[in-house]
């Protein structure tokens, strides 16, 4: 490999990028705007879940229960319905995702037996929201129960007895406020970088073929390795810029705590960029037509990165076979690294596994790309 030839290719590529300012703008603005915009969109925390109440009793006690729901930040009572069909219609139209039904004998049971029950009708077509809403509703109801108990004790002039024989003291590590944004935004950086990186390079060789400049390139003494590294280098610089933008927005604008070292972040990001760019390059070499290259790049990056990288859907909850498949998704390693760097402040040694996988990936792709790129006109 000769450095001067590599440099020549790099300079040529820089000129080509420079002369297509629209593509350059897209490549630089795309990650920036997406990070900024979508950072607000990636939120799994539920607040103000719309609730319909169906009070079949209309007593003081039942109204007090609804006041507890109203007071909770997790619920917003949107409507009071007076029949099951009306409740059904509200849930059908997605006006509410939870219906609280108080039975007609609620007060009676509560006063006589000290035990009553209410119904939580859940729109389980969204099972996650239903699950979480039910958890919050249970907490509201048990808060209500102890309130009722307190007033009863008060009335009877007795002293408070032990109510709970056991308490759960929970402590949350790494993401202390359990904010979903804190774990999804670092993942979003990885996703955006994977998408941008693949599209930066995936057209670089097929463009030469389709425009006929490949013949010129082949007639020069340049070696395949020099072409590859020469073409990757300018895009690596662009990738650094993009990554710096995204990571800065994550940490500074969205306030995701960063607990790792900058050196570890730089090292792993560079490694990941190299993998992503060389995969784009490999595809570009393998597939002659630009449409083919881009379609494959899109298929390989877009949805797999979003669904199989663990950035939203936890990998350890997937079936074993799918978990095995995720090892092929290179973004999964970077998602893991960035999350751990941000929230856990992991060191390089703790991240040895995903880093090793990325290195193996980088080597394999480079070798494949070098093999695939033959200077032949056929």
């Amino acid at each position: 490999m000769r450095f001067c030839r590599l440099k020549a290719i790099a300079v040529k590529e820089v000129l080509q990028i420079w002369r297509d300012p629209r593509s350059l703008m897209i490549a630089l603005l795309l990650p920036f705007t997406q990070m900024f915009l979508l950072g607000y969109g990636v939120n799994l925390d539920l607040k103000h879940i719309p609730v319909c109440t169906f009070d079949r009793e209309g007593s003081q006690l039942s109204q007090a229960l609804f006041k507890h729901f109203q007071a909770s930040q997790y619920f917003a009572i949107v409507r009071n319905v007076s029949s099951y069909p009306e409740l059904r219609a509200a849930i059908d139209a997605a006006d509410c995702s939870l219906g609280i039904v108080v039975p007609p004998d609620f007060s009676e049971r509560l006063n006589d037996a000290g035990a009553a029950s209410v119904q939580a009708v859940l729109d389980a077509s969204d099972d996650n929201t239903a699950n979480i809403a039910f958890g919050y509703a249970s907490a509201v109801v048990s808060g209500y129960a102890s309130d009722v108990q307190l007033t009863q004790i008060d009335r009877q002039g007795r002293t408070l007895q032990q109510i709970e024989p056991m308490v759960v003291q929970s402590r949350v590590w790494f993401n202390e406020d359990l904010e979903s944004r804190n774990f999804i935004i670092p993942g979003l950086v990885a996703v955006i970088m994977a998408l941008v990186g693949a599209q930066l390079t995936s057209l670089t060789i097929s463009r030469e073929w389709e425009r006929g400049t490949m013949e010129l390139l082949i007639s020069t003494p340049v070696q395949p390795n020099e072409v590859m590294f020469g073409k990757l280098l300018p895009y690596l610089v662009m990738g650094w810029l993009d990554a710096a933008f995204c990571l800065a927005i994550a940490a500074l604008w969205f306030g995701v705590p960063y607990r790792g070292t900058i050196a570890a972040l730089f090292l792993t990001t560079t490694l990941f960029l190299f993998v992503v760019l060389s995969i784009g390059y490999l595809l570009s070499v393998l597939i002659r037509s630009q449409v083919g290259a881009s379609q494959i790049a899109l298929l390989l990056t877009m949805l797999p990165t979003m669904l199989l990288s663990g950035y939203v859907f936890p990998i350890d909850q997937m079936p074993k076979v799918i978990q095995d498949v995720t090892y092929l998704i290179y973004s999964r390693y970077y998602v893991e690294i960035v999350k751990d760097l941000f929230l856990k402040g992991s060191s390089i040694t703790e991240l040895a596994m995903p880093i090793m996988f990325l290195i193996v990936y980088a080597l394999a792709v480079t070798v494949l790309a070098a093999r695939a790129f033959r200077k032949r006109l056929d």
Partner: protein
Amino acid sequence: MLEHALSSRLKFARIAAIVVKEFIELKRDKWARFRLIVPTLIQMLLFGYAATYEVYHVSTAVLDLDHSQESRELLSLFTASTRFDVVKVAQTQREIAAAIDGGDAAVALVVHAGFAELLRKGQSAPLQVIVDGTNSNTALIALGYVNVIAAGFAQDYATDLAERTLGVSGMNPVQVTIEQRPWFNEDLNGQWFFVPGLIGTLTLVIIVNLTAFAIVREREIGTLEQIMVSPIRPVELILGKTVPFFAIGLGEVALIVAVGILWFQVPFVGNPFVLLLGSSLFLLSTLALGLLISTLCSTQQQAFSMNFFVLNPFFILSGFSFPISSMPKVLQWMTYINPLRYYLIVIRGTFLKGVGLSVLWPELAAMAAIAFVLLAASILRFRKTLE
């Protein structure tokens, strides 16, 4: 006069010619058929299993410093639950911390010495829980299950104690229970929510990706000039390009829906014609979007970048994985121009809820409006670039 009026009207024959041309091109491209079917099937199968927020088998570390019957009983409840997998029985606090730090366990349960004594005295005995909050959703749900199991234990113990010490129940704590009535999806099966969602998402990606290159490709390989010198008008060209993609899209939707129903066993309780109508409108709006991208870009590279630029927000701001109600107001407004948002409501509504036109008409109307605006925009835009 009459002849002029006629010639300015759409000529069906010219549209048909474009349709035939597109089909011939597709037929020649052997790879295209493969690209259209195989990746779609593979992705649907993979993602159908991958996309879930359900929480099972949470890796759990336990530390019992009390070594009492009560503590063993409590921890055995966790061992027995399918929600938790006890992966480590620790001997010291340090081991617990290491397990959480290293990601070997997501939940740690610690029973301190004196737990049983406190319980027997009728005082509040603590169960310490440490949760790896990195994935807040999993952590939240896992914590919920810990609370349920702990509450069950506490309840049993209290009843037991009351019976033993008082003979009859003395002052029972007031109990208000809440019963779960999950409609449409009684077992809270996560696949039932995500598999219908995947139908829309996969279709969006495939169709936009196909159509975004439809015109820019002709422009770049020079065949657009040949079309321009023919008597075909912009409207006819765009409509002619629309028909084959629409047919392909319907085929893709049918394929994906079949996988969802036959393989993933998601029940379809609604009216198939409502789904067909919704899918058609969705297809029209997505391929209009692709065509607009195609007319806006002058190179395929630009079209490719635009795809990413457009698809990623469409995906995230659709309600597929992130609830729209949790987004800031401004972002919620932006979702109104996203056809996927409406299609997901239609798909989930027809699949699980079985609702019909009376509920879904606003979504269908919105998709029709989006399709119309985008198609008109791409025709206008194309006319402009011709001049």
